[in-house]
């Protein structure tokens, strides 16, 4: 390893070890100790408790069902936009990806407004059928699954759309030339070749569902999944049990990750053909009908979010039994801006998200460059640590941070951050390390190293090359990653509620 690599690698590795690996090891340690001694007591409690095992089982099946439902929504949608040409395709296609940008809590609340007992949609049905009471209650596993499918289909939609745009049309044409029909081609050629995209989306949905907190918290009622169970144990002050639950949640997620990688490893294809490019979109006769259908589908998918927007214009208490709210005003916005009480949390969130995202940008640039351009011992480990916060549910990370940074032991790398301004940006930062770093890494990998050499051969200094060539070229990836990080940081409810204290409010 040369000196320049070392100077770059040292801070990156340090950050990863201290903020990513260490807190998680800390939780692992907690789960195995009682009163400072090694003990399996907490694990014993976990395995013998019906409610704990029930929560684990609930987490797993809810997540698996979320994967299936999201795929059923997202995959056809991706095919629709990737393979057919119709008016408004671009706009509708972009809108279909919108739900990923909304924080889970906002999504969840919007469902209450829409499908809750006094929700928009529920009332409509009630009025229409002339019922005395609401036709359903939005609660339990069904409600959770509804929210999950509604918000997480986007992963399938985006991944499969990207996969289709990379999928060479030559393969399908070859199959057709060999006499395969449409269905056979889809089943035997197109879908298998989309396996990496499908696998990636399935993984993300599974992970997100495992970690999902808002939906089970708001709609679960008595139905507990692991993440809400962790929250309950935390409130009860049962630190050891919390650690065990976090470990179990992490292990379940990692198991799924490993399973999926096995599956993908057996099904990863690199194109052997010269390439025709992606299949062209077929122009459909009466494309406007397809457009109408797609528009309706998107409207339906965005309905919850539109509802939140609508409700935000309704003065508090003015909407009781009417189908449409009777009065609209900017009252909510005015009070938000005019009363510091309400504005401060918003400004705090913005500020913390900004700080975290800036840190992410700096870290991702260094780590991305290091991983893409330098060969050094331990590179694989650095890569693994970079994606670890992705592989672990957010709840686990929150617990890990909460227990690591609750005491002051500088010699052990521990400081009291709970209750300080620093803990939330730190949590956002760690959570988004994979997202931003992978985005930058992908940009670096697409950037031909010869371009940097060309700058050097023209006499540009290192700084000059970085500033005038490298940065402009990785900027799109960096910006996309940073934007997503900012938006998710802003909406990270899980980390907030677990780490929240009055001082940062």
């Amino acid at each position: 390893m040369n000196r320049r690599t070392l100077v770059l690698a040292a801070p990156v590795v340090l950050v990863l070890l201290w903020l990513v690996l260490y807190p998680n090891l800390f939780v692992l340690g907690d789960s195995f100790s009682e009163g400072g001694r090694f003990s399996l007591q907490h694990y014993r409690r976990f395995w013998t408790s019906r409610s704990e095992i029930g929560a684990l089982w609930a987490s797993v099946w809810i997540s698996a069902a979320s994967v299936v439902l999201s795929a059923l929504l997202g995959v056809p949608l991706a095919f629709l936009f990737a393979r057919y040409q119709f008016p408004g395709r671009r706009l509708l296609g972009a809108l279909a990806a919108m739900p990923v940008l909304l924080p889970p809590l906002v999504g969840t609340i919007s469902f209450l407004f829409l499908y809750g007992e006094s929700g928009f949609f529920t009332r409509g049905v009630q009025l229409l059928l002339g019922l005395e009471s609401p036709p359903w209650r939005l609660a339990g596993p069904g409600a959770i699954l509804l929210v999950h499918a509604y918000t997480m289909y986007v992963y399938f939609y985006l991944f499969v759309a990207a996969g289709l745009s990379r999928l060479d049309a030559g393969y399908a044409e070859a199959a057709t030339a060999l006499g395969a029909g449409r269905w056979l081609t889809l089943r035997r050629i197109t879908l298998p070749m989309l396996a990496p995209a499908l696998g990636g989306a399935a993984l993300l949905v599974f992970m997100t569902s495992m970690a999902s907190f808002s939906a089970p918290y708001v709609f679960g009622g008595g139905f507990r999944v692991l993440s809400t169970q962790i929250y309950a144990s935390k409130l009860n002050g049962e630190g050891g049990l919390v650690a065990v639950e976090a470990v179990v949640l992490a292990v379940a997620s990692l198991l799924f990750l490993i399973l999926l990688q096995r599956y993908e490893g057996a099904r990863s294809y690199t194109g052997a053909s010269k390439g025709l490019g992606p299949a062209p979109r077929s122009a459909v006769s009466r494309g406007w009908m397809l457009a109408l259908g797609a528009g309706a589908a998107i409207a339906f998918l965005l309905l919850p979010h539109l509802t939140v927007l609508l409700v935000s214009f309704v003065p508090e208490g003015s909407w009781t039994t009417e189908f449409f709210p009777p009065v609209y005003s900017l009252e909510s916005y005015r009070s938000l801006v005019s009363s510091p009480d309400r504005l401060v949390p918003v400004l705090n969130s913005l500020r913390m998200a900004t700080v975290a995202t800036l840190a992410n940008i700096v870290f991702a640039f260094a780590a991305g460059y290091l991983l893409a351009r330098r060969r050094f011992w331990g590179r694989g480990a650095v890569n693994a640590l970079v994606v670890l916060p992705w592989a672990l549910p957010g709840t686990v990370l929150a617990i890990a941070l909460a227990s690591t940074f609750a005491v002051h032991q500088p010699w052990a790398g521990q400081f009291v951050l709970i209750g300080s301004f620093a803990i939330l940006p730190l949590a956002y930062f760690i959570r988004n390390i994979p997202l931003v770093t992978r985005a930058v890494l992908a940009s670096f990998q697409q950037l031909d190293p010869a371009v940097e050499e060309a700058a050097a051969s023209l006499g540009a200094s290192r700084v000059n090359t970085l500033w005038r060539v490298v940065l402009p070229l990785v900027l799109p990836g960096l910006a996309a990653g940073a934007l997503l990080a900012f938006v998710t940081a802003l909406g990270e409810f899980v980390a907030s509620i677990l780490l929240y204290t009055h001082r940062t409010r």
Partner: protein
Amino acid sequence: MLRLDALSRRFGDTVAVSELSLEAEPGQILSLLGPSGCGKTTTLRMVAGFETPSSGRVWLDGRDVTRLGAQQRGMGMVFQNYALFPHLDVWENVAFGLLARGEARRDAAPRVERVLELVELPGYGKRRVQELSGGQQQRVALARALAPEPPVLLLDEPLSNLDAALRERTRTELRALLKRLGMTAIFVTHDQEEAFALSDRVALLHQGHLQQVGTPEALYTAPANPFVASFLGRANFLLATLDPAGSSHARLAGGAVWPVRTATDAPMQPGSAATVMVRPEALRLLPPGSELAPADLQGCLVDRRFAGAMSFYRVQVGDRELLVQGGPADAAPGDAVWVRPREGAVILVFPGDAS
């Protein structure tokens, strides 16, 4: 002047370049030629300053630049895939080197215009580089490298991404341009024809070792070893025994005696086993009924391939197959034929069984 002094580069166990010593004459085009993987790119990158030699030195105008980075050496480089800056337009690409050394845009402008004219892209400054055709991108890459007036221009297979017809035209233009500028250039290619058409001197590499360096004619007519002979054009190899009385004649397996020249500096023992190298154009098939001479070799015609201006004949002689250029048009496969060296043909011998 550029001089490479016993340059070596190892990657783990592979020796990419071994003890390579070379000089690029001022104002001349030197080609590094050799099959893929022979170390051409590695050599060029050591000259440019992108790769640190495991041992050896690089001298530029009497200065040891081995430890200098690419930005201090200031050699112009044209990359195989051009490596144009995709976010900058043509003008900004070409001006990059001038601006990088602190020149004001106003001062750089006339030179950029001039270089764009040189590569026949005047008025293309505002174009985005992605909009250009492959040939135009190649010329922008050349203009970008030439703009700072580097002491040496390095080109790594710059024509390999062009289609065949364009490649041929471009190499003529490239040579004319470099000659007009009096540029010292090192040109990397795996294409023998391209190296011959473009360069003043050719250095042939094989597995990291320099095989021979010289003018194209010298390499073709006096190859230093069988590898050079067979890499540059087509060559026939035949086993022979050197004449006991000296090394000016060799006796072939079939009994024919050919006048030969020794190719290597290493002296060869009279009467020792040798390999004869003869090019197809140095041989011809005799018309039926010709009077035979001691140099004639009997064989059996395998096939005849018509190639426009001439025909090629494959002739089985003993266990070898000879390629012969020229002969009677009515010879048919299966015929017994006679092969004779042309008058004054160059026939080389290498020691031992070298084929």
